[in-house]
């Protein structure tokens, strides 16, 4: 079954890190991706640019309304995601726990809704 692992963390966390520390986190991410790929569990994933670059789109009365943001007052922002294949929730939780930003941030584990074939 597919799960989305949504990574929430303070997007300014890298500001206080040295270059070597940033490199270590990046390396840890790449290592995890490679390992999941080798196990056939990695279906995709991307890091996201900062919330400051985000735009929000709504259609109201047939008109497209675009606003800057979102500017929710939260400490953690959606900063990226993994899409993985897992046997069960426990399996997905075990993968989520290995994402570097699970330390300091949090990972939301969401089952992907199966769509009827065809």
């Amino acid at each position, binding site marked *: *079954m597919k799960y989305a692992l949504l990574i929430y963390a303070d997007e300014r966390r890298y500001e206080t890190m040295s270059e070597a520390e940033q490199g270590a986190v990046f390396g840890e991410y790449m290592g995890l991706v490679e390992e999941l790929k080798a196990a056939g569990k990695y279906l995709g994933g991307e890091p996201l640019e900062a919330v400051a670059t985000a735009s929000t789109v709504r259609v109201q009365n047939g008109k497209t309304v675009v606003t800057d943001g979102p500017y929710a007052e939260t400490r953690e922002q959606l900063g990226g995601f993994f899409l993985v294949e897992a*046997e*069960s*929730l*426990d*399996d997905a*939780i075990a993968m989520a726990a290995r994402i570097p930003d699970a330390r300091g941030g949090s990972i939301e*584990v969401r*089952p992907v*809704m199966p769509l009827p074939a065809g």
Partner: protein
Amino acid sequence: MPGGTERGENVAARLERVVRDESGRILATLIGLLGGDFDRAEEALQEALAVALARWERDGVPANPRAWLISTARHKALDRLRRESNFERKRDELRAETPAASAPEQELERQTVVDDRLRLIFTCCHPALAPEAQVALALRTLCGLTTEEIARAFLVPLPTMAQRLVRAKAKIRAARIPYRVPEESELPERLEAVLRTIYLIFNEGYAATGGDRLVRTELCGEAIRLGRIVLALLPRRSEAIGLVALMLLHHARRRARVDAAGELVRLADQERALWETSALREGLALVEEALGAGRPPGPFALQAAIVGVHARAARAEETDWRAIAALYDLLWRAEPSPVVALNRAVARAEAFGAAVGLADLDALRASGALDRYHLLPAARAELLARVGRRAEALAELDAALALVSQETERRFLVRRRAELADGA
């Protein structure tokens, strides 16, 4: 005749008894056989019960009613699947292959029932479910309480409780919470969650007021039963032993805790002859085992040890408060929470004098951690009264009364305040 109907006991009564005692085990097995589908398992059991009523009336009660119900429910579930258009796909999801019609029922049951109950406990107490949902699900499936009984016990409207159960089961299905005993590496953390849920059930039953009293006593019994299942089916770990000991020791005192008028009786004032000796003896033996098995002992084992020291005193004055204070020191190290600090201060006051406890409570009050908790000013009031600072004691009782929400506790504080005001 083993398992046969006793003369005089009709089939309906016998069936009711089987459901009462065995439905958790039956459901656990069915959920396992049906690939973790709670709803399908419950449905199949209901159908099997309807068949049992008619069949047992005609042919007599089978030698092993539980195995009979499991086997019948399983066939009912398969029938239902066959009727559904997607039978082929669903059949693949079934974990067990269909046994030959002549497969001995006992064998099927013997292989699956023990593991299944444990699997069901870990599924119901999965940390991905909200604690109140864990409790409701455990009571519904493992203990066989009706949704209505659970709603009454928790003072929640029936539709709310029904909704809670539906949501929990939907999450188990959609998020695929597995139906299995966790692997060795996850077991300590997951077992902790199970023990916490069992203790929540027990505490809900133990709370002094509110809800249906009969159902509440039943909750304590069910919690103890679940604790015993964990003890029986897993290697005996210190905290699991400690939890069962703690519950048994509390439960043994239940008849002495509330007087004829329904008022709370303090431990020091309890009629100790009302304590249940067999449960106390069992609890005390388990305390020894728990303390021996855990290095260092965890919070449940230590709490059980503390209640055990109280239980050993034939009269309140003979309580070994120094032992209790020492155990609270260990508990404080294992679990440095403000409530533990409060209880530790009270124990130290008994062991080393009111002034020592009062100093602890002053420090706790200065931390502000228990600002909204009525038992902090209530405890301070008792110690202030003992060192002769009566005016301050009365002020603290007023502060406690402003914070207390539970009715029996409020009445208790009012009584204490009147005693103290009169004792000038």
